[in-house]
């Protein structure tokens, strides 16, 4: 009988699921990892909820890191950030396939394996999106000097972009808000960054702050710069659209203002 292990959508949840799958000592082919609840329960299948357990997760993390090395481990971490419902099973089966290889460190070059390929693709998509955020994310300065960025990434990439901005803005208090997931990356000046989750039904205090006095000026200055720097004789909106996907523009200062005006 097919067995579905239902785990929480987090590193801890999925790694615990992998731990439990191994503990069952059954054929891996009969076991599936599922992230979150399933709407269409399959007949003749058993479903079991897995409680995330940080000790078990840590053991799995150590094994992956030791056996697959940095490259494989990072690919798994990036795939974990994906919003694809199949990621749990892909990672689980990729771990199984990788550990069966004579040199597990080469796991990521085994792209002929469908699970490795899936993890590779998920990881690439997350990495790409993290890079888009690094390019196109915009901070606004609030009245208390905090820099605040609204974002809406498809994948859970907040933890991938926080180190970049922390290195570049060490003396700033800044917040990156993933609106879709209700999570915040916080960086207090001169300290380490961390992530907090929004409390259900409670609006964040951030929304009560006004923008700083200088914010309007610099938004307008940049928007003006953005328009003057284009060479009219070379206008090419299609090229622009290919380089800068429309879905990011909602959050970008230079597109905000021009839209408001028109």
């Amino acid at each position: 009988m097919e067995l579905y292990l239902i785990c929480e959508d987090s590193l801890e949840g999925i790694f615990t699921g992998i731990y439990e799958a191994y503990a069952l000592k059954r054929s891996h082919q009969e076991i599936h990892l599922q992230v979150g609840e399933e709407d269409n329960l399959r007949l003749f299948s058993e479903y079991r909820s897995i409680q995330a357990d940080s000790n078990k997760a840590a053991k799995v993390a150590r094994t992956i890191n030791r056996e697959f090395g940095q490259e494989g481990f990072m690919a798994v971490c990036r795939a974990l950030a994906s919003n694809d419902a199949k990621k749990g099973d892909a990672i689980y089966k990729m771990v199984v396939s990788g550990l069966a290889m004579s040199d597990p460190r080469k796991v990521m070059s085994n792209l002929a394996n469908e699970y490795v390929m899936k993890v590779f693709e998920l990881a690439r998509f997350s990495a790409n999106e993290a890079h888009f955020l690094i390019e196109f994310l915009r901070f606004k300065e609030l009245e208390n000097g905090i820099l605040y960025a609204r974002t809406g990434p498809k994948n859970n990439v907040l933890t991938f972009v926080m180190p970049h901005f922390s290195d570049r803005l060490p003396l700033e208090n800044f917040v990156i808000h993933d609106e879709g997931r209700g999570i915040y990356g916080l960086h207090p000046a001169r300290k380490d960054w961390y992530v907090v989750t929004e409390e259900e039904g409670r609006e964040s205090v951030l929304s009560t702050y006004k923008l700083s006095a200088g914010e309007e000026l610099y938004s307008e200055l940049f928007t003006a710069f953005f328009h003057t720097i284009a060479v009219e004789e070379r206008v090419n909106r299609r090229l622009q659209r290919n380089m800068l996907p429309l879905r990011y523009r909602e959050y970008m200062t230079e597109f905000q203002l021009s839209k408001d005006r028109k």
Partner: protein
Amino acid sequence: MEICISESTTSMDKLGVLSDAAKYDVSCSSSGVERKGDGTGIGNSAAGGICHSFSSDGRCISLLKILFTNECIYDCKYCVNRRSNDVPRVSFTPEEICTLTIEFYRRNFIEGLFLSSGILHNPDYTMELIYQAIYKLRTEYRFQGYIHVKAIPGANPIIIAKLGMIVDRMSVNLELPTAQGLSELAPNKHRKTILMPMRQIQQGIKQNKNELVLYKKAPTFVPGGQSTQMIIGATPESDYQIVSVAENLYQKFDLKRVYYSAFININEDRSLPALPGGPPLLREHRLYQADWLLRFYGFKADELLNEARPNFNILLDPKADWALRHLESFPVEVNRADYQTILRVPGIGVTSAQRIVKARRNGALRFEDLKKIGVVLKRALYFITCSGRMMFNTRIEEDYITRNLLTVKERLPFDKDGVTYQQLSLFDDVNFQPESGWASKLIEPKSVVYGQL
């Protein structure tokens, strides 16, 4: 005096004038320098460069590209800032430049600053002003992001040397491909004074590299290298002359990049070409393609063009054009030919060629393998064999292949008819992606477009 007048102007006005005047400079690249922040200020730098926006002309915005002043004592015919133009003149103060850079950078609008300038009073005076602004930005504001400055021809080498220690990239614009073109359009400029600072920067970089070998912590001199720019189509030089000049700049001056800028007759100067069809974008595009062939494909300028055939084919990219004129070297056997030979096949780019050489060690490659590797078969098939066989029964015949290649529509970045932009057909690795690094986005293809990044 000028600065006094300009102080009454708002920063909005100044930014408007001084970014408008800077926009014809092509480079907006922030690449070539990897530097972490030191925790005491603001900024860092990423080796691959980061674009922060794309303007309506599709070009990458990476740096705050502005002039220090649009005052100018010279009268270059092609330039908005020329002395004889009746335009409002403004200048930034070093303080204003610092504030703008920092405030833009904090909001993640930019990677850094690209500061150029008209010539106020004389080259030394202007260069000194620029130095003051950059020095302030680096020391008082502890800015560690990317800085690109123009070295002003004729400025004292001592200031240029000082400036080189605190910036990432420097450039001196060649302006026009030949000395004759220069003397016609920029009568106050001389080829010699342009090449002098170029040489100085080249030697500075070389010397600094030796120092860095001896002493790791030695301060770096222009770590991002130097670049230059030529205006295309204002003067009658041929493509052959232009490509030869570029080749020389790469070989003899170790330039990182040569940029080409299709001429726009902003001043509607009657002694300059009128160009009713708009700026020569296709020509500029062909030059960029040829530039890639020089830098990454092992081609020499006089293989691509010569005195008898001094201009690129409008219809075909320079690589396909070369192949069609050298059919005697085809077909190439992909399972045996060396890397350099494979690299010359139309439809095979740098990444695919590398993959072929690596993959064939595990056994002979078939056409379907080539496709997976990223080879554009519909272009390559006329020029290759796999284990002795061609893909179809095609003839090695110039007219026949030319006709077939032309039916594969080349995608140009500036097509008006709404053709989707893809990678330029010369860079045929369709799924070319840097394979590792968590920011493994398609950085290269972006950089291809008008040589940005």
